[in-house]
């Protein structure tokens, strides 16, 4: 019998899942359909480089359908809702798709409208985001003519995609204004809702020190309440941060159809998901990959890639009636661009925070330490993304589970 597998979302998670499943199943075993509202697949890590003129939006966008292997149906349509009881997806174009297994891969959505004043007159004038191709390009134009004043980088609240990207933006801004010879005329401030530069203590101390060394001010536990015309962020606690140019990472939520699908999502429209099996809590035949899930891992492409193996294996197990495997360990791996042709690498999972050492083994890329090799790794990754990761290949030497061999792990505290 042919199983009907419907994948909602044709981004990183949806594409690599579809391609892995297509390799696993013959055409008579499974019909695989991918739905997305548009045909623009954005290489999101590239957005960081656009404002500094280091990449162009045309270079980082490709058609979604072309990333899918032969024998995968692609439907370009909005999604109205999922009817969990009926096992159906109702599309915006009126079509209803029945499924035996549903994979939710619709990622996270920016919700700037939830922050008072953010979409006011200053939006795309002195207040920008680089989290969309249009925003990144417009910010590039604004940066090019910015020659003195206060640049503020602000994360409104967590969760956000790629939690290190705003820090990378700060480091690159420091490099960019240094190269232009005007670093002394630009003040850079990083305003974050976290109590440090990062969520995990060892990396937070290292990255906080790096901000400090570059003369970048950090304002912690700042919860943005309002963007006030005239160049001010006001916090809910009454604190204010003045800016001439603000780079804001807006609030994130899940896709809107999740909210219209009874029983599927949480209050932010992310889908409650078992963090190890990647099966949704909503129904046994719904699985979730990538940013759409509420699992306590970073919303990042590397996490999505590492989830792929477990997810596809568990879809297979579900269809044959085998027990699922709790295989995903929360593995994340992020290059952090630090400017001046260097980058730092962090590698961690649910249980182990980023620590120094080398990845993936004692001979490898340095962890939590700036190096040129990591910068080259970051640049090379774009090609790996299109040609290795999206096709759903296991990347040689890089297993899904977090390696410990090269890590300098702290001695565990005794309770």
């Amino acid at each position, binding site marked *: 019998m042919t199983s009907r597998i419907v994948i909602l979302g044709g981004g990183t998670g949806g594409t690599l899942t579809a391609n892995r499943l297509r390799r696993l199943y013959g055409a008579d075993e499974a019909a695989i359909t991918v739905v997305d509202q548009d045909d623009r697949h954005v290489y999101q890590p590239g957005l960081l480089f656009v404002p500094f003129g280091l990449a162009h939006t045309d270079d980082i966008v490709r058609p979604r359908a072309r990333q899918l292997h032969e024998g995968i149906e692609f439907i370009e349509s909005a999604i109205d809702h999922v009817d969990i009881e009926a096992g159906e997806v109702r599309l915006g174009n009126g079509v209803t798709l029945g499924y035996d297994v549903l994979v939710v891969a619709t990622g996270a959505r920016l919700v700037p409208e939830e922050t008072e004043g953010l979409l006011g007159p200053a939006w795309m004038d002195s207040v920008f985001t680089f989290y969309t191709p249009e925003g990144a390009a417009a910010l590039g134009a604004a940066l090019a003519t910015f020659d003195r004043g206060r640049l503020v980088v602000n994360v409104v609240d967590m969760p956000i995609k790629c939690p290190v990207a705003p820090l990378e933006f700060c480091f690159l801004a420091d490099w960019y204004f240094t190269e232009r010879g005007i670093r002394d005329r630009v003040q850079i401030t990083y305003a974050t809702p976290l109590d440090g530069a990062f*969520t995990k203590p060892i990396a937070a101390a290292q990255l906080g020190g790096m901000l400090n060394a570059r003369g970048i001010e950090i304002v912690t536990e700042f*919860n943005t309440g309002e963007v006030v015309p005239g160049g001010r962020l006001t916090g*809910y*606690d009454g604190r204010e941060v003045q800016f001439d140019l603000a780079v804001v990472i807006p609030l994130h939520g899940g896709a809107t159809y999740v909210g219209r699908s009874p029983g599927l999502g949480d*209050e932010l429209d992310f889908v409650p998901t078992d963090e190890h099996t990647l099966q949704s809590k909503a129904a046994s035949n719904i699985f979730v990959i990538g940013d759409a899930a509420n699992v306590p891992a970073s919303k990042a492409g590397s996490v999505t890639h590492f989830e792929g193996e477990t997810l596809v294996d568990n879809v297979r197990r579900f269809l044959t009636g085998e027990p699922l495997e709790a295989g995903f360990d929360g593995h994340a791996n992020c290059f952090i661009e630090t400017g001046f042709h260097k980058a730092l690498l962090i590698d961690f999972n649910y249980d182990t925070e980023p620590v120094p050492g080398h990845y993936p083994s004692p001979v490898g890329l340095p962890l939590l330490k700036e190096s040129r090799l990591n910068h080259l790794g970051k640049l090379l990754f774009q090609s790996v993304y299109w040609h290795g990761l999206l096709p759903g290949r296991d990347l040689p030497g890089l297993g899904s589970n977090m390696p410990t061999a090269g890590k300098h792990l702290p001695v565990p505290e005794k309770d």
Partner: protein
Amino acid sequence: MPNATVAGITVDRNDEGFFTDPNQWTEAMAPELARSEGIDELTDDHWRVLKFMRSEYAQKGTGPTVRVLGKTSGVSIKELYQLFPKGPAKTAAKIAGIPKPRGCI
């Protein structure tokens, strides 16, 4: 792990002052915990939030973030900051005797 005595009872808390075992908490401890967070008197509105924090923790295994509190508790984020000026999610979690809200990674 540091111990603390609250309302005459020894409880386990982490370095930041969050309870590690919510079962050790009783309502009688809340006023003393609130005072150490700079809140002199717990009003009905405070209690509404504290009870909400406890029930969310019981259901989901983590306390809500301030954004989720604002969406689901019936108290707006502005009001939450008036009630708990040092940060609603963390302060209310401490007073309600639950671990630090996991927030995000």
